[in-house]
């Protein structure tokens, strides 16, 4: 039985495919707003130490669609704000015997650290610092595969603050396992050269035009000012050199799609025209988020 989901890196293709296939079969149920009872009687705790709208809501809805009970705890208004340590908070929650803990935390590795000390309760990583965000990569893959027959050979440009992006890392691991060509693009201080060695099929560029040329998929990332010591670029300059605008789209494949994990900052990393264009699948990503998280929860908690 899988013990939880900490990241994409340790998963193999078979496991990923199983989740993606199952997510596809959940899509009709999700769009029809139907509830089923695969996880009836199961208790899932969503523990969010970092602000989140879509991921937390998405996990909550996914749990409820499958008949599970879900409660959400945010760091403010919990004992964390009274100075309780992370391990004590988790031990306390663990003693209440939930069936799984979905966790988001600003520290890379926080769920891995807890998984070592809390062996009874499966932990699902809903984003840890600048490390991984596995369900985001899964829902991104689902969204691509709704429009393409395979990930193999696809050219995927991931553009923006790669250094601080858990979304980029999880996507690189997943796409690489399926033979995609991944181009990472951003200003030098947000694009450490070591990224080229993260997984097979990864190349780096500092020019957005080079990244987009011939791309099947363009993933834009938010600039995570909250994780940077000093801004690498002024806002205007950033949009000038790394913001996705309509004129860029002529460089990509004619049927290229534009993705963004959200929240988007219009006029910063993406223009409104692109975000709202036919090419944009940003809201499909959100929709798939629920189907993918249903598949993940069922896989971890189902009988």
């Amino acid at each position, binding site marked *: 039985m899988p013990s939880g989901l900490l990241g994409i890196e340790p998963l193999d293709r078979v496991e990923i495919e199983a989740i993606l296939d199952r997510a596809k079969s959940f899509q009709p149920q999700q769009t029809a707003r139907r509830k089923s009872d695969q996880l009836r009687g199961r208790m899932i705790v969503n523990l969010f130490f970092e602000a989140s709208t879509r991921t937390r809501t998405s996990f909550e809805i996914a749990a409820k669609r499958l008949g599970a009970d879900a409660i959400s705890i945010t760091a403010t208004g919990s004992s964390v704000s009274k100075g309780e340590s992370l391990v004590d908070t988790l031990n306390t929650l663990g003693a209440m015997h939930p069936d799984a803990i979905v966790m988001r935390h600003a520290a*890379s590795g926080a769920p891995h650290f807890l998984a070592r000390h809390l062996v009874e309760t499966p932990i699902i990583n809903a984003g840890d610092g600048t490390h991984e965000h596995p369900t985001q990569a899964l829902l991104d893959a689902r969204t691509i595969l709704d429009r393409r027959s395979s990930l193999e050979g696809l050219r995927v440009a991931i553009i923006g603050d790669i250094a601080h992006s858990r979304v980029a890392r999880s996507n690189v691991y997943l796409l690489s396992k399926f033979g995609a060509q991944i181009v990472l693009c951003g200003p030098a201080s947000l694009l450490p050269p070591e990224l080229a060695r993260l997984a097979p099929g990864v190349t780096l560029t500092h020019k957005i035009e080079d990244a987009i040329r011939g791309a099947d998929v363009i993933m834009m990332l938010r600039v995570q000012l909250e994780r940077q010591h000093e801004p690498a670029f002024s806002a205007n300059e950033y949009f000038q050199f790394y913001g996705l605008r309509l004129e860029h789209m002529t460089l990509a494949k004619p049927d290229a799609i534009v993705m963004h994990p959200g929240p988007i900052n219009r006029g910063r990393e993406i223009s409104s025209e692109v975000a709202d264009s036919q090419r944009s699948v940003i809201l499909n990503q959100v929709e798939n988020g629920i189907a993918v998280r249903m598949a993940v929860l069922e896989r971890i908690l189902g009988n």
Partner: protein
Amino acid sequence: MSKLVIRNGRVMDPASGLDAIRDVAIEDGRIAAIGEDLALPGASELDASGLIVAPGFIDMHVHLREPGFEYAETIESGSRAAAAGGFTSICCMPNTSPVNDSATVTSYIIERAERHAMVNVFPIGAITKNSAGEELAAIGLMKAAGIVAISDDGRPVMNARVMRRAMETARSFGLPVIDHCEDLHLSAGGDMNEGIDSVRLGLRGIPAASEDVMVARDILLAELTGARFHVAHISSRHSVEMLAFAKARGLAVTCEATPHHFALADNAMPPYDSNYKMKPPLRSACDLAAVTEGIISGAVDAIASDHAPHAGSEKMQEFEKCPFGILGLETAMGVTLDRLVHTGKITLMRMLELFTTGPDRVLNLNRGRLAAGAPADITIFDTERAWTYDVNRSASKSRNSPFHGYSFRGGPVATIVNGKIVWTADGLGSASPGLPSASQ
């Protein structure tokens, strides 16, 4: 006073080059004689057949946490760990609370050590008041009270002009300046070595350049001031190369390396295991090889553990919140034998230099040699006995070691400080009737 004869050990002394089966006679805390078939009426006897008898090991870089952080370590517990690791002398860094930046704190440490320590404790004083990097500490008065060097270990002096003044002052008092070389602006926020692993784990990187730029600065300042300058825990390739360069120019610069920096690279860390978090961080395999080459070539003068205890609760946190530092006193010899001697990279005699005459040359402790009349600090060890390090049985009050569960070949057997046996390995007491029972 007590008398002791250590019989039939392989006596190895890097200072004199002696390497032969000999007896060592000890009287009144000093070595009375080294020779064959020594007779010392009324003396206890210790059979060291098959064992190495060496000058007492010196660890020039230890954190004893007292005063101020007694929950993590005390002079008593830290010195017990030192004895268990085969060390007879340790030098304690000044980052206590209060910081050892005055003769009062120095005297306090020395008095506590006289009463509670199992081994010789030599304090290192702060360079600046409160190690804040601004105003020089009372260096001369601390020297009079007993410090053997100055360092703002862990909080390096960022202002080059302050460092220059410190070097000038240290020179006039005949003290070496030990620098934890780290440009705090370059390393800010970092949790591990900058490289593929920090990128993969999403942890902020500490570039090797943050060490190198300070080593370069301090070598230049040492040349400017004529001070004796010592690099603590050297860990990067460029820093080792610069040390070799400075030595070739005839400067009075030295450096130490820690066992973890020549035994473990950054990719050895299990994901987010804070027992692998220290400063400088575990570097790349290329840096590790350079530190090892430096030890072989002589660019590195000493092995020091940088023993840095932290209470369990401090290390049981998110990786980025955990403090830097790991235990080292009890595993230093085992790791060195394992990685350098058994692999044929250095000779046993070279290892002894790195633990004895090497640090003594930096600090002028007048220890680290076996000679009639010298203090009877002696480390007896073997090179073959298999043992496994169990950190839960450590004499330290803390448990933060990456070497927990490691199997070693060879390690300390008995530790003698000023003629007194302060520690013996389990079981040896009963096997050797002449040996007083272990003080543990």
